[in-house]
């Protein structure tokens, strides 16, 4: 089953290696900029013609209360591995907090549709395997744009692969139900990002660079749970 994906990934990596040419004024964080811009353009086309229109219709068709339930449902499933990652990073209290969230929301929150845990004072966290690797001291490596998924790095892309390998929705049967859940997840996620991408459109002079720098800043902040060692911008 997973074979085609593996082959695609391999072909993509080979293409990447072939494109690692030297050029003028490269950003050391982004040695594959030429190739990345190619994948970025492909993703933009896919987004313009399919993902964004579908997400826009989805947002118009469903009331915000319903969309929030969908977000809560998937967010609840993610709490299991958010907890695992917190424990792997040595943050045991946070991990227990995340699993308690999952327990309360799955039962009294009706399969996670209602986030009663937040109202109880159990805070939602943001963790994934990429962040855990970062916490363990793995550097981000070169910046990468993944097909369909967007901004990443070698470290975070590896993390995403692990996130996907372990997430429980993949075990859902029948296959049709699993695929429906995947579809719903992607459309809902894209719809949540509609405002953000519009703002990006307005703010950026070069969208590629703006997205890249924002992504790298964001990941650094997440790895330190919002408290990265301060890099004070020196006044000129």
């Amino acid at each position, binding site marked *: 089953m997973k074979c085609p994906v593996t082959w695609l990934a391999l072909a993509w990596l080979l293409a990447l290696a072939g494109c690692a040419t030297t050029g003028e*004024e490269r*950003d050391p964080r982004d040695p594959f900029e030429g190739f990345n811009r190619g994948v970025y353009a492909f993703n933009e086309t896919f987004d313009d013609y399919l993902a964004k229109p579908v997400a826009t219709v989805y947002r118009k068709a469903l009331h*915000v209360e319903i*969309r*929030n339930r*969908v*977000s*809560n*449902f*998937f*967010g*609840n499933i993610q709490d299991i591995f958010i907890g695992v990652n917190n424990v792997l990073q040595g943050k045991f209290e946070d991990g227990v907090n995340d699993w308690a969230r999952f327990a309360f929301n799955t039962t009294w929150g009706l399969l996670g549709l209602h*986030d009663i845990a*937040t109202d109880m004072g159990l*805070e*939602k*966290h*943001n963790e994934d395997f990429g962040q855990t690797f970062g916490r363990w001291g793995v550097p981000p490596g070169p910046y990468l744009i993944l097909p369909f998924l967007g901004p990443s790095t070698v470290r975070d892309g590896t993390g995403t692969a692990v996130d996907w390998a372990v997430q429980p929705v993949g075990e859902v049967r029948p296959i049709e139900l699993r695929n429906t859940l995947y579809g719903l997840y992607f459309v809902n996620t894209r719809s*949540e990002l509609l*405002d*953000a991408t*519009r*703002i990006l459109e*307005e*703010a*950026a*002079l*070069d969208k590629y*660079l*703006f997205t*890249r*720098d*924002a992504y790298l*800043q*964001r990941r*650094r*902040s*997440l790895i330190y749970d*919002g408290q*990265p060692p301060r890099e004070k*911008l020196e*006044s*000129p």
Partner: protein
Amino acid sequence: MKKTTLLALSALLFSAHPAAAQEAPDVLVKTVTLEVVDLITKDKEIKAGSRAKLVQVIEAKVLPHFNFTAMTALAMGQSWNKATPEQKKQLTEEFKTLLVRTYASALAAYSEQKFDFRPLRARPGDTDVTVNVRVMQPGAQPVTLDYSMEKTGSGWKVYDVMVGGVSLVANYRTEFANTVRNSGVDGLIRDLQKKNSAMEKK
């Protein structure tokens, strides 16, 4: 002569904003945010999608509390020193237009969400503080808005906004540096003008 005019002018400025000079930075952020969000959610023209009215509200309510010259200087980094006073003025003006529009869009997008204003963690004598606000979201960790603020003669002024850990000012650094390297400070001014007029038409 010159000195007296300046004195009279500053006296006028301070008497016009007696509250601004004393208001604590976290109180200022909370008051202004709530006031603007309230205006956005109630105003019929803005709800109908009027960008002009939205920008007008931001300009009247938010703009006085930002130090755009400092923001432009930080985003420019080393290139700031290469610019002439006239270029600095133009850069600041264009960057301000860009930031105000972006900020207006962001606030409009978040206006339906719940805000959580965090208590200020600073010593009484501090002149450089970060005010933390969180915007609640369904199914995800709240988005943090961190306002970096500096105490000035005319009250606390914002010189950077971090959204989810992303510094808005730092995020322009690569773009600005690349443009200045390739086409000079004037090239950057032109690019900013082009961007602003393109957005104006939308």
